[in-house]
């Protein structure tokens, strides 16, 4: 049918479907909800970083007016966690606490104030244990283990894999370059703090509204911890006031609210304070990296060895996936024929790290792009050319077995090179002014689900009736990224109706088909494909009925302008609602479904599950900086960025995501950091946030935003709906390295870590003035014995995607087995 080639909505900057409600305050976020007889929950949180709990004394708290109930950890003995291999959290700690902020008790009161006051009156007696504050400490501390599971000691996960003979590659190289680089942790800083309301139903069931990006996983965690059949629990994800990965885990406050509601038979609400959000965290892992690369004279990479060490914090969260992600996507931008990756994640007594925009990939991308910049200078090449001349080809398979489809990076690079005047300006700007270039790539959803199953990753259901209205049901969650608009646009496009004719019902585990959640940049591609399938099926039904009524071949019918008509005689037709009524008469009640499962990836080795995606987006970025040599202060006056989005469903939203990524990326490059400090031993030795509030945590404001020139590159991907790929995460990644590369062009020093503070630039300048290399960054990578890597021959070597030494390497002890009984059906 012809209209898919000439879309009327897709590709236009239409107004987002949730926009008016958002700007007029009518969107109901979780914190906006209230129910009759509702009471309030607060959590008592540990102020010590690592301790056994000896006693919890609630006697003073009980006397506070309005306090009605306490929820205790012993009542919820089952553990939970986002990954089946890291079910290491209790809803409330009852044996030991593992970080400052770990929740130990729930307090329920008639008012939020009373609950808050009561949390301060609860006395917890702790027997303190040694604290582990860094990867280095975790590597040498075997007593006082934070968890009883893990690969060894306090190492949560250790992976090592080699694709091709990396050492022989170094022997063939003309230049071997090594760098040690650090990326500080940082947090999501969504405007909305987490909130949830649990409402017990009359029949023993329960409904939980929550600001979550992943209602499906919250659903599973609730079933496991509450020991209820999942079918008796309904989770409704409210639109999120920003997520960025920070609402992707099931959280203890959601579970405790539900438990309290069941215990007392009243609706229970909890809203976290900003400080609590800083401690719940799940933000960017601090990662120390070592990268060693062999180059040919022309800049071609012959071999690369990347090592990463992640400071994981106190719980597993997504950490196993995060660890693999620090090594997975290094190969998808430039040709890396031989590649070794060693990564580890340590448990420390800090707020747990998890996924943040770019999940595990911005850190190694920063390392790689800074490293490439240095290589270009060492080889006497233009940093743009070392990238441009060695791109990974489209429709190829990388050394680590990732299948690349469309690949628009060359065009992205050309756009920013031309736009920024790179060829005329790089290396030639006045002292203190500089340009930096970097590229990146990101997934359009993970190829495999978080827990092993063969079911679709997303589903869409469409209900049509004689009113002409079309109701679309999907488990996706609007987190501000525009997924509601994508869903409505895909369906409206196919059925030839207006966006306003669509009613969405999303993120409701009772009513909507499962969608795994708004993370991993998966929604547009996966949900979009499911929506197209459901809409095409609806269109087929309608077309069949209308064809019969009009005596026109179904293939000749056009769905457009809210009508269904004969392409050769547009007058001959009917309104869309008449068409639906015609179909309803013929077939009975109308409904269709669509679903999507990603294609199988070619990797067949342990760890091959992280990295594959139906498609990869690409970005290239040039950033200009002005550096004040005397103070080290610098500004970013202008950014040029090009993003290969495959095809824009809505270019206005795509531009918004790209510019939002610049905002976030500049924050990470210049100022944002979830740094912790250890209080003096006499003051509890606790590891506390340096910046646990927005009065102190630094993030750019509107005033700090530079001029941004955005280019959208559209190289449609056959796996994307209408050819669309992701845009929510990829464009963030080149920003940080481009800033540091620009600082080098401006003042000739290397800042090998982010955020790059003015003080670091000054120190590097001092270092250079004293005859040093002019560098600020980590001195060394921790000593780790990696053992025998999993050896996987590359496609070029004629490999079949399997490891050749899987048996010798075996499976390390560090993963938990998912208890199939844990989740009742």
């Amino acid at each position, binding site marked *: 049918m012809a209209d898919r080639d000439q879309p009327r909505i897709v590709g236009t900057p239409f107004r987002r479907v949730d926009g008016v409600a958002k700007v007029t305050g009518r969107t109901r976020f979780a914190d906006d909800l209230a129910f009759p007889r509702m009471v309030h929950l607060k959590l008592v949180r540990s102020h010590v970083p690592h301790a056994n709990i000896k006693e919890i004394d609630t006697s003073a708290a009980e006397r506070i007016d309005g306090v009605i109930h306490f929820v205790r950890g012993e009542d919820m003995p089952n553990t939970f966690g986002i990954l089946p291999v890291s079910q290491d959290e209790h809803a409330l700690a009852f044996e030991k606490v593992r970080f400052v902020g770990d929740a130990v008790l729930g307090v329920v009161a008639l008012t*939020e*104030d009373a609950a*808050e006051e009561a949390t301060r009156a609860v006395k917890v007696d702790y027997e303190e244990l040694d604290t582990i504050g860094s990867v280095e400490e975790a590597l040498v501390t075997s007593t006082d283990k934070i968890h009883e599971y893990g690969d060894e000691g306090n190492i949560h996960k250790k992976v090592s894999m080699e694709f091709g003979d990396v050492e022989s590659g170094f022997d063939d190289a003309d230049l071997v370059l090594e760098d040690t680089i650090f990326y500080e942790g940082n947090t999501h800083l969504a405007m909305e703090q987490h909130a949830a309301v649990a409402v017990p139903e009359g029949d023993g069931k329960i409904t939980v509204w929550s600001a979550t990006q992943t209602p499906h996983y919250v659903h599973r965690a609730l079933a496991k911890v509450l020991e209820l059949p999942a079918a008796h629990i309904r989770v409704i994800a409210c639109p999120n006031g920003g997520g960025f990965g920070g609402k992707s885990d099931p959280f203890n406050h959601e579970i405790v609210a539900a438990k309290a509601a069941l215990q007392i038979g009243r609706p229970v609400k909890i809203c976290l*304070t*900003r*400080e609590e959000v800083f401690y719940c965290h799940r933000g960017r892992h601090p990662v120390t990296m070592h990268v060693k690369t062999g180059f040919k004279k022309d800049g071609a990479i012959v071999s690369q060895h990347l090592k990463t060490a992640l400071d994981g914090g106190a719980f597993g969260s997504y950490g196993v996936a995060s660890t693999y992600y620090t090594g997975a996507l290094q190969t998808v931008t430039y040709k890396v024929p031989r590649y070794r990756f060693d990564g580890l994640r340590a448990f420390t007594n800090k707020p747990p790290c998890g996924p943040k925009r770019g999940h595990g990939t911005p850190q190694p991308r920063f390392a790689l792009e800074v490293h490439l910049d240095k290589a270009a200078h060492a080889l006497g090449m233009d940093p743009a050319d070392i990238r441009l001349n060695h791109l990974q080809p489209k429709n190829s398979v990388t050394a680590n077995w990732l299948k690349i489809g469309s690949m628009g990076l060359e065009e992205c690079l050309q756009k920013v090179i031309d736009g920024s005047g790179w060829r005329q300006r790089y290396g030639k700007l006045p002292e203190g002014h500089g340009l930096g270039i970097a590229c990146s790539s990101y997934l359009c959803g993970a190829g495999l689900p978080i827990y092993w199953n063969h079911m679709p990753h997303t589903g869409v259901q469409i209900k049509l009736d004689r009113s002409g209205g079309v109701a679309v049901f999907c488990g996706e969650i609007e987190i501000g990224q525009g997924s509601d608009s994508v869903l409505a646009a895909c369906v409206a496009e196919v059925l030839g109706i207006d966006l306003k004719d669509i009613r969405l019902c999303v993120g409701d585990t009772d009513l909507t088909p499962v969608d795994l959640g708004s993370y991993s940049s998966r929604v547009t591609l996966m949900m979009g494909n499911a929506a197209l399938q459901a809409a095409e099926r609806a269109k087929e039904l309608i077309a069949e009925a209308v064809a019969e009524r009009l005596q026109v071949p179904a293939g000749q019918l056009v769905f457009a302008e809210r009508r269904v008509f004969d392409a050769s005689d547009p007058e001959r037709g009917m309104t869309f609602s008449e068409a639906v009524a015609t179909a309803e008469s013929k077939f009975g009640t109308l409904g269709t479904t669509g679903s999507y499962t990603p294609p199988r990836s070619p990797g067949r080795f342990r760890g091959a599950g992280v990295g594959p995606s139906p498609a990869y987006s690409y970005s290239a970025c040039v950033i200009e900086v002005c550096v004040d040599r*005397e*103070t080290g*202060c610098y500004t970013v006056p202008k950014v040029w960025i090009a993003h290969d989005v495959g095809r824009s469903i809505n270019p206005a939203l795509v531009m918004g995501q790209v510019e939002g990524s610049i905002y976030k990326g500049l924050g990470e490059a*210049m*100022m944002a950091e979830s*740094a912790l*400090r250890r209080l003096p031993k006499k003051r509890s030795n606790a590891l506390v946030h*340096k*910046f646990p*509030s*927005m*009065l*102190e*945590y*630094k*993030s*750019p*404001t509107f*005033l*700090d935003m530079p001029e941004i020139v955005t280019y959208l590159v559209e190289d449609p991907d056959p796996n994307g709906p209408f050819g669309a790929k992701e845009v929510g995460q990829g464009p963030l990644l080149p920003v940080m390295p481009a800033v540091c590369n620009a600082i080098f062009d401006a003042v000739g020093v290397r800042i090998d870590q982010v955020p790059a503070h*003015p*003080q670091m630039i*000054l120190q590097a300048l001092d270092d250079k003035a004293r005859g040093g290399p002019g560098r600020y960054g980590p001195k060394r990578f921790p000593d780790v014995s990696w053992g025998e890597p999993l050896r996987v021959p590359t496609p070029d070597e004629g490999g079949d995607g399997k490891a050749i030494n899987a048996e010798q390497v075996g499976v390390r002890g560090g993963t938990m087995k998912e208890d199939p009984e844990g989740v009742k059906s």
Partner: protein
Amino acid sequence: MIPAEFDYAAPATLDEAIGLLQEHGDEAKILTGGHSLVPLMKLRLARPGMVVDLRKIDQLSAIEMDNGSLRIGAAATHDAIQHSDLVSGHCAMLCECAGEIGDLQVRNAGTIGGSVVHADPAADWPAGLLAADASMVLVGPGGERTVAASDFFVGLMESAIGEGEILTAVSIPAQSAQGGAYLKMAQQASGFALCGVAALVQVEGGNVTSAKVGITGVANTPYRAAAVEAAVSGGLEAAAGHAADGVTPLDDIHASSAYRSHLAAVFTRRALETAAARAGGSA
């Protein structure tokens, strides 16, 4: 992030306000802009039982000349001061100082009195007021008294204001300087000064012959950089090197003490140079 319960009063006269302070004693806190008090209340670090809002007392926001001195009412907003022709004509450096505070929203609501009394070691006003030899007008149950800026900022978050006293105005004497400047490096999240330097200079034959320099953000109290002032006739760069003489620079999560000392020297030199370049116009 929700303050504890409190009562609120917005008296129409100064006498009424003083009466409320006497009545409520330790329980009372004065609000004029709220940028310091409200965050403390939201974090529950401050739990006043009574908040006395002075913004309804008209005379407190007046900016006027008084016997050759400029009198800025304590409840005058930063923005009003930044854009006041009177202030600009009397000591333009103070307009620049006002304009460096926070952002537009902060300057629209925040007041000079609120800032000064809070005595935050990184606030902008103290640097400007110290350099301009300002004095603070305090009214209490015992009547009115005046305290020089150099005696007013006595410690970290601690001023010379007494129990039950209200700062009603800041008084700035006639200036003999020919040029002035306020330059700062702001902490990016809060906008407070990691280092802020106010300079007023007299120039003869193109050379700075005398200077008054106030520095904020560097030590635990804002200070007059006496060593800089003493050395200024010997060249600005060398003089600026003494910017942190005699103080212990703060060392905290936002900047190390070494970096603050360095910034103090750099910004002092720049402020002196800028002030000198402006000499000839209004200081």
